């Protein structure tokens, strides 16, 4: 007999890239996006970049508080989120400003948030984008829960099979980091989503660092994508600075989810080019060399090269994007700063805590109002 045999893993577990460093492309995998969409992706990536650069200055000037820049991860975010429909759900962590901008979140709201006003967390009535979640990894259970309700309703409506799976359900996409993979909540949510084949796309932005902890200090696992094996879930590991790759991977995962075939773990291998947050000093723990290396793989540059090579856009297009983006950022800052003045009524702290506040909390509110 064969008393000792290897355990076969019967799951798709793949690594992939589409663009190389020179902006050349693998034709088999090129998603063939149309020019308008590519331009829009380039625009939002640049917007996120410029917005962060501006915010870093505002923070230095003390005009806003600390925040987590997205710089370097624009392709991981825009490539993935752009695979969603508007009616799909987004469950972010705290670094997803490029996702937020893609989905149409107001930049001046974001600035209000950065300036410490709860009002900045405003979400449009029909929006399916959850608010920022700061406790690392704790948002993944929410994504699973939303996915559960989608699947349940799908089953109840007779769409799909008895597991609620079938064509055309909404999809949930959730974002988290390399560090988050160590958290228990992430494990529990991945396991639950796979168990019930929920329509969730798990986007792990492996930006190499969790504050000062490198991935190698986080786990002995050779890749993060292989963590999917623990849940019987397919895993994809893609070049996260290659927006075509992140888009292809996400589109595949979204299609799988929509078709009722369950969740996918997508690892985007990328890099946090800036500080963790403005409270952080990376020079203490990482080499400038490493940052320089990654600069060569800048996701915005690579998309630009691709578009130029393919004659999809030229320098004047990019200049035009650049100037419209600058204007947008400037307008948002102006707008936000005007709003700073109006806000800050201290009694606002009592807003939205309860649907119906208890009498003694109302009394506390009146006390604060009295003090002014």
């Amino acid at each position: 007999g064969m008393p000792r045999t290897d355990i076969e893993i019967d799951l798709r577990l793949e690594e992939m890239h589409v663009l190389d460093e020179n902006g050349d492309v693998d034709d088999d995998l090129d998603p063939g996006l149309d020019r308008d969409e590519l331009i829009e992706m380039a625009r939002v990536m640049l917007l996120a970049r410029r917005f962060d650069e501006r915010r870093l200055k505002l923070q230095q000037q003390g005009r806003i508080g600390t925040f987590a820049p997205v710089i370097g991860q624009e392709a991981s975010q825009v490539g993935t989120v752009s695979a969603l429909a508007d009616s799909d759900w987004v469950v972010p962590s705290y670094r997803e400003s490029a996702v937020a901008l893609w989905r149409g979140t107001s930049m001046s709201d974001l600035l209000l948030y950065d300036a410490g006003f709860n009002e900045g967390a405003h979400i449009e009535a029909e929006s399916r984008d959850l608010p920022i979640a700061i406790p690392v990894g704790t948002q993944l259970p929410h994504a699973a829960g939303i996915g559960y309700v989608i699947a349940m309703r799908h089953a109840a409506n007779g769409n799909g099979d008895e597991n609620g799976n079938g064509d055309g359900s909404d999809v949930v996409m959730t974002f988290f980091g390399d560090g988050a993979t160590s958290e228990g909540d992430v494990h529990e949510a991945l396991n639950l989503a796979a168990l019930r084949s929920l329509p969730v796309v798990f986007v792990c932005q492996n930006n190499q660092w969790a504050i000062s902890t490198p991935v190698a200090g986080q786990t002995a696992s050779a890749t993060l994508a292989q963590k999917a094996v623990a849940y019987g879930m397919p895993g994809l590991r893609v070049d996260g600075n290659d927006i075509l790759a992140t888009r292809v991977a996400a589109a595949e995962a979204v299609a799988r989810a929509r078709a009722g075939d369950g969740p996918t773990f997508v690892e985007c291998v990328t890099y946090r080019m800036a500080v963790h947050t403005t409270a952080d000093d990376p020079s203490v723990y990482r080499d400038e060399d490493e940052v320089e290396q990654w600069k060569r793989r800048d996701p915005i540059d690579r998309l630009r090269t691709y578009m130029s090579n393919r004659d999809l856009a030229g320098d004047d297009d990019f200049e035009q994007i650049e100037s419209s983006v600058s204007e947008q950022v400037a307008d948002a800052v102006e707008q936000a700063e005007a709003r700073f003045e109006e806000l800050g009524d201290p009694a606002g702290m009592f807003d939205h805590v309860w649907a119906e506040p208890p009498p003694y909390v109302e009394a506390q509110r009146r006390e604060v109002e009295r003090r002014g």
Partner: protein
Amino acid sequence: MIEAIRLSLHEAMTEDDSVVVLGEDVGVDGGVFRATEGLHEEFGPWRVFDSPLAEAVIVGASVGMAIAGARPVCELQFSGFSYLGFHQLEEHAARIRWRSRGRFSVPMVVRMPYGAGVRALEHHSESKEVIFAHVPGLTTVIPSGPRSARALLAAAIRSPDPVVFLEPKSIYRSFREEVPDEPEVGDLRSARRVREGDDITLVAWGAMVRRTQEAADELADDGIECDVIDLRTVSPLDESLIVESAQRTGRVAIVHEAHRSFGPAGEIIARLVEQAFWQLEAPIARVTGYDVHVPYFAREQAYLPDGDRIAEAIRATVEEPS
């Protein structure tokens, strides 16, 4: 009481198909205390979800379900294991309405068997309600019998905000009570007077209500008339009834099974001192669990407030010269 809870769940699931029951062993098994018996068979594996053994995602997925428009009622198998999911309550369930500026809300219920008295193992006899009561945005309910359990659970499921629903397991099967044919929906914002008297105010909740009432009955023979208040909802605290009563009686004893120090009685005392100070005629007595881990079951009754301890505290408080 367990039947009243099951009835209430059944009524809610029948009336509103967004109600989802989930938790460990709540499905096929019907729950380790049989609170969800029959629901899986009737409503199927989506409405009644036998979850993996993972408290954080039971609570956390419930948060997501509620955001997506469902009304999840999750069960944590014992309140002593709720701490594994507590961060989801503190960091999210209680905050999502606030954090999203009202865009999303979290109408969910977390049910948990709670308290000592059933000869169970370690961690199966906990009563740390104060941990939930201290969190803004959470409502913490502890019913004291079948009828109130059914009505309060119905209200909890309808509540627009998250409710922690602690079920004193020692009264799951300890006494019977008629419940009306028609569904009742309780009020999550009010305490209830369960006995009238002018000599002393007694405040209790959950399994301690009955013990307190029994002590009050006994003392009535000696001419001590107790005003007994069943808090029902621990937080937000309905101070009005307690304050009114204490202003009248001038004497108060609070009975709870939780540890004494930094326990729930402190808040009640603080409110009384703030609002009934000039009417108080004696120190407020606390009859509580001790400041030790709930002992294994051979000693659990010695840990819990019993008739003797309650009566002794009442007498001492009433006899204190003012």
